[in-house]
């Protein structure tokens, strides 16, 4: 199988996001899997509490089982998926890559950036991480770097803003 670097230009120094981000994604994926299993498992629970129906019905077990299997596959893929997220700063552009099954590489010129967003939530905060999103005038630009260490995110924001101002171009 060809390497992920196949899509980007050769000789680019890709940097990965924080390995802690794997934990964040694992935790949130686990939580959402549990919640979905519970929601789809309502008929099973009702049957087990002998409120409604018979627990030996196969159809009652099918939806939560599918959700569970899907969730486990998802959990197994998360480490690879996070490791596939990368970025590389070049002289005038920022390169971003992501995805293992559906892969994409995006190149954003610094001079095109309109603003840089940093977002963080309670879970990300607990690991000292932040999400960084670049916005250009095009809505299609999907330049999102999740799970950067806080200090790195701040540095990147400062750096991107500085270079953006230097290389600013009109529409």
């Amino acid at each position, binding site marked *: 199988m060809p390497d992920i670097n196949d899509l980007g230009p050769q000789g680019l120094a890709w940097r990965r996001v924080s390995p802690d981000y794997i934990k964040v994604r694992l935790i949130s994926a686990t939580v959402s899997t549990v919640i979905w299993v519970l929601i789809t498992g309502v008929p099973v629970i009702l049957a087990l509490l002998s409120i409604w129906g018979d627990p030996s019905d196969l159809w009652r077990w099918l939806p939560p089982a599918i959700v569970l299997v899907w969730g486990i596959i998802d959990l197994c893929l998360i480490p690879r998926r996070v490791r596939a997220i990368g970025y590389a700063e070049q002289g005038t*552009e920022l390169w971003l890559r992501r995805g293992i*099954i559906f892969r994409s590489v995006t190149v954003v010129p610094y001079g095109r950036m309109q603003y840089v967003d940093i977002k963080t939530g309670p879970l990300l905060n607990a690991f000292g991480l932040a999400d960084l999103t670049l916005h250009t005038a*095009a809505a299609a630009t999907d330049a999102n770097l999740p799970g950067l260490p806080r200090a790195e995110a701040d540095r990147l924001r400062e750096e991107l803003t500085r270079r953006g101002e230097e290389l600013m171009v009109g529409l």
Partner: protein
Amino acid sequence: MSDSRTNGPPGTNALRPSPEGQWLRVHPLTPYVRSWLLIVALVWGVGNVFLDDVLSAVVYGDPLDVDFAGTVQLVGIGLVAAVLCGVVGLVIGLGVLSWWFTRYQITPEHVRFRSGAIFRTQRQARLDRVQGIDIERKLLPRIFGLASLKFDVADGGTSALELSYLRRDKARELRHQLLGAVREASRSAPATAGGSRDGYGHDAARPPVGAPAPRADAPAPAPWDHSPQARQYRTARAGHADNRGMSTPEEGSREVRAAARLGLLSDQDDPDQQRRVFTVPTSRVVLSLVLSWGTVSAVFFAAVAVVVWWWNPQALRVVIPSYLPVAVMIVSGLYNRLESSWGFTLSQVQVGVRVRSGLLNERSSTIPVGRVQALQVSKPALWRVFDGHRVKVITAGKGGVDDLEGLRSLVLPVGTPDNVADILELVLPLAEAPTELVRDGLNGIDGDANYTTSPRRARWLDPLTWRRTGFAMDDAVLSLRWGRLNRNVSVIPHHKTQSLGLQQGPIERRMRIASIHAHMITGPVTTAVHHLDAQQARDLMVRQTDAARAARERNNHDSARRSREEIQ
């Protein structure tokens, strides 16, 4: 209502300074024209109730006796007249009230529009952000000789500021003067106060014939001006740039051409000065509508109805009503197309092009060349009979999803290859029109000198069009082409691309192909091409990134030089 400010002598471009806070009113008929539907409904309702009884009273001499559905009875001519007068008076009164509170104000910096008696709304637009002022004439206002002014604002959201309604000649005059004010405002905005006016060569006389080199800030002739002076100006200008060691003669003339086309050099020319480039003849409009999917499906449905009728006339009673929604859809679609292509005229103005069209609702719109982001030429399958083309553009600041298919993005509803060539020359913010790329993009098949197409293995995903799907690139533009029956080509200037993406799904990866997407400002132009060889797509990405960087630098360099010249 007298209004001395907007009736300045012709030829003065700048709006005379006006005291802040002077509010002007729109045309008194405005509220009635705006709420014409309501008035029609009222007239209909009143007429329904009264007319019958009144007519019978007049004709047969019956006693007048108006019956409101049995609840209220009006007897006698006086009472009926009183009620009628009351209703009419109320309508007029509400209209006058609404008119009284609808005002606009034009200061050297802003245009403001205020309306509403109880719930007041005020909108404003900064004049230095105004991209264009368009006159819109819808059917009903047109009957009353009214028009509205629409302001395109660069930082604007979805809805533009609209001044409605003014008398038509007044709207035209106001537009003319406002354009002058807009240029004044946008000029003085970036430069320091005071310096800009003199620095821009307002008072600089035209260069005398035979002058060796005109001043850098002397007024340029319009790009379409082919008089000897204009030609001499251009040569002198090119040589001038050369002397300064800025660029080679070709580059100089290229830059001058581009700058002249962007309206950055000329100063004293009338901003409204137009040169008509083409008008789409009515016969071609009709032909384009006949050869459209709307007509084809209408014919198909009619044929089905005929067959059904022949088979069993009774069944028509079911079939015909079920056609109604489809018929409405087809007719409204065709009508929209008719409206946007009827009498379509493209003219060249100083900042770019101006398009005008409309059968019942006439609209016009200005497209500043410097803000055009991308262009797409399409050749629908049915139009290949008469070699018809459609051209759309993305223009920054002409946003609004509702406008995507509207007039503002359409620069050619149906036209000949010659029209397309004219448009490529006039609309794109490029020095060299990419005529060859577009021609090959529309007619070429398989890889050739310019285009690189999908690899043969992509035929499993793209059995019909893989030989057409492709891209071409030169120093200035990236060009994408696709579609076998409906042929399309889009042209994306490098210095207008925002970012670039490369995508690959699992099947594409197995087949070693990938898709490229140039991210642009939202608009009706497709800027993605699928199923390219992965290696070629990757190379394209790197090359495009380099070319876009170079194009941006070139552009920045140009604009820096221009601002230097302005300050001198």
